[in-house]
């Protein structure tokens, strides 16, 4: 029963992605066709903004407000919110899904309070400046391949910039204005301190953020994200490959394989940019109140929804840079050459779009689960992690990767190094820490020494040679 509900829900989610992406391609083809008859091209960008950003990302982020509460509840063995219901239905009948509606309604109907001496314009500008750049980040992330729909090429990206990654860095660093303005304009010392914490954290981690992607830029010799010559699509190429009939099998040049350290650094730095736990000392909702202390109602809602949009966008960006974008790990060639796919390119686009959003969903889950696993970093730990760990490791990764790419431009050496790094982390994860090992050994010794005439003190006991028993 419950299993059925879960699978039906998953089916609805992926079916939704599938339908929306198919619709995005069809709509793109239609407007391209319309534009071509009027002498303009690239009108599909507008429909992509509409569907990719306004519909998928925004709805995704809105659903996440509830998902975070329910998921965290499951992780902590709780039931989570389940009281909201529609009139006429029994309590808890819809598993709390109407909480999305009630949350929005609550935000909208609350008073938008402004402190007496707060700067009127800047106070209102804060949440907008925090929201807008985060949202705009998604513009360069490709959510599907470029396909010929109704004889016109349709790109599944809002804007195909040559400087995609640089745009990413530039816009991401704009978000700091929103937080520091919010902190300053509130005319509140605690908010100001929160804003200062936020800006120092975001600026510190921007260094590591930029550095962590340089390895990928060198590997593919581009800063472009979308398009056939973009980083996202170039990850489809195989490092090692074989064929089973017409099915192509192999290891793709995904960023996670050739730059695992770069991925970890980027993930950590971008996590700090989103200001979510464990990097949420700028907010510290319950105790060290943060920069949006004075905001209420929908103005606070803007900060909150910006955070969730950032989670989705960050998931999409990481998928595009490190997880092969919309492509499958293998079998891409086989899928693209299928007769039915050649006949109905919209179907192919919908499949690849679903793959992209599925990967994004996984990374969104990863961010959520980290937020509910890790305790918050102290302020000094944040700065130490950023400057003393991420930055040197990023530099080292950059030099090693650069040398390996120079030595072997086919990226295979880089991938072997990547597997070495992954193997080291896997080994460390699967073996117990030194302290645990020592305790186990001590316990074993203690067990062996059972029945000894005069029990020695614990410290000495562990040192007794086994032959004395």
């Amino acid at each position: 029963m419950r299993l059925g509900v879960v699978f039906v829900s998953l089916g609805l989610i992926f079916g939704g992605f599938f339908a929306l992406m198919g619709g995005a391609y069809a709509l793109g083809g239609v407007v391209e066709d319309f534009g071509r008859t009027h002498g303009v091209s690239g009108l599909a960008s507008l429909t992509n903004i509409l569907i990719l950003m306004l519909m998928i990302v925004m709805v995704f982020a809105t659903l996440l407000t509830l998902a975070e509460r329910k998921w965290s509840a499951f992780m902590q063995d709780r039931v989570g919110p389940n009281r909201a219901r529609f009139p006429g239905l029994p309590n808890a009948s819809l598993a709390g899904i109407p909480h999305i509606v009630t949350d929005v309604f609550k935000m909208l109907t609350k008073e938008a309070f402004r402190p007496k001496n707060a700067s009127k314009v800047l106070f209102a500008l804060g949440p907008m400046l925090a929201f807008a750049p985060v949202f705009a980040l998604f513009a360069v992330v490709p959510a599907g391949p470029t396909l010929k729909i109704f004889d016109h090429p349709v790109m599944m990206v809002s804007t195909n910039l040559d400087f995609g990654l640089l745009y990413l860095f530039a816009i991401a660093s704009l978000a700091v204005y929103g937080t520091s303005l919010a902190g300053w304009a509130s005319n509140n010392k605690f908010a100001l301190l929160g804003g200062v914490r936020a800006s120092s954290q975001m600026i510190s981690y921007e260094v590591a953020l930029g550095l962590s992607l340089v390895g990928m830029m060198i590997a593919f010799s581009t800063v472009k994200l979308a398009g056939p010559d973009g980083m996202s699509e170039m990850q489809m190429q195989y490092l090692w490959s074989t064929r089973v009939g017409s099915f192509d099998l192999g290891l793709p040049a995904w960023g996670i394989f050739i730059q695992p350290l770069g991925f970890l650094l980027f993930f950590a730095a971008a996590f700090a940019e989103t200001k979510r736990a464990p990097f949420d000392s700028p907010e510290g909702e319950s105790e060290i109140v943060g920069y949006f202390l004075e905001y209420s109602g929908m103005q606070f809602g803007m900060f909150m929804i910006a955070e969730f949009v950032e989670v989705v966008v960050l998931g999409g960006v990481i998928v595009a840079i490190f997880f092969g974008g919309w492509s499958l790990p293998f079998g891409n060639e086989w899928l693209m050459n299928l007769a039915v796919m050649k006949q109905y390119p919209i179907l192919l686009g919908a499949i690849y779009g679903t793959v992209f959003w599925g990967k994004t969903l996984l990374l969104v889950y990863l961010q959520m689960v980290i937020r509910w696993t890790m305790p918050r970093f102290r302020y000094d730990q944040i700065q130490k992690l950023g400057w003393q760990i991420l930055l040197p490791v990023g530099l080292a990764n950059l030099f090693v990767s650069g040398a390996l790419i120079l030595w072997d431009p086919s990226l295979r050496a880089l991938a072997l190094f990547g597997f070495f790094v992954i193997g080291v982390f896997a080994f460390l994860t699967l073996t117990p820490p030194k302290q645990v090992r020592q305790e186990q050994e001590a316990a074993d010794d203690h067990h062996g020494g059972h029945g000894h005439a005069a029990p020695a003190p614990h410290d000495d006991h562990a040192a007794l040679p086994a032959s004395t028993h």
Partner: protein
Amino acid sequence: MSSHSHHDPLEKRELVEADIRERTYVPEILKGIALTTKHFLRNLFGERDPNPDVVDRKGLATITTVNYPEEKVDYPPGYRGLHRLVPREDGKPRCVACYMCATICPAQCIYIEAGEYGGDDEHAESRVIEKYPKQFVIDELRCIVCGLCVDACPKDAIRMDTYTHVPSEYNRQGFVYDIPKLLKGPAVSHPSDPWYKRGSSAPPDHVHKEAHTRITAGGAALAKRPPLVEVVKFAKP
């Protein structure tokens, strides 16, 4: 760790140097994620078991919540719940207005007004007892649920075996319970009851319920279990 620790007490307090797994964060975070995800998946796919009994729990889900207003946990045996005035077989309270409970009550929440049976009124069969409560009022807001009134009662007339707590009310007056609100539950009689001692009547032909009804009556949880006290059968005189 080292043998120096015996000489220098301060050395014991030095921090254990963090393992490489902790200093690089990643392995420990991965372990944490694995743990959290395990709980997430178990609770996502598993059906929540509303059974409050921890040892009887089965199934995937690790959620232990009982959705209170819809699902209720039976109170444990011996739970001191809301008072009740125990009725006789004829529906009148067993209480003889002796004031024992009101006297012992540390919270002074019991108010009794005694009435006296007249020599020739219509309560002829009740004449063996002289007093009855005209008013018997418990202020449940004052009650500290100590159960001393139950122990003090010589007539087994007040019990706390309803296995419910005091329901909420909108005003304080609602918590003041009088006889109509208090008089409920199964009737109880004992062979020693004075109204059986009249010359005209014989002791009732039923088991002596005193010992076991005290513990089990009203306890739904106990219905499934074997009786805690063996039922003693009284031989007919």
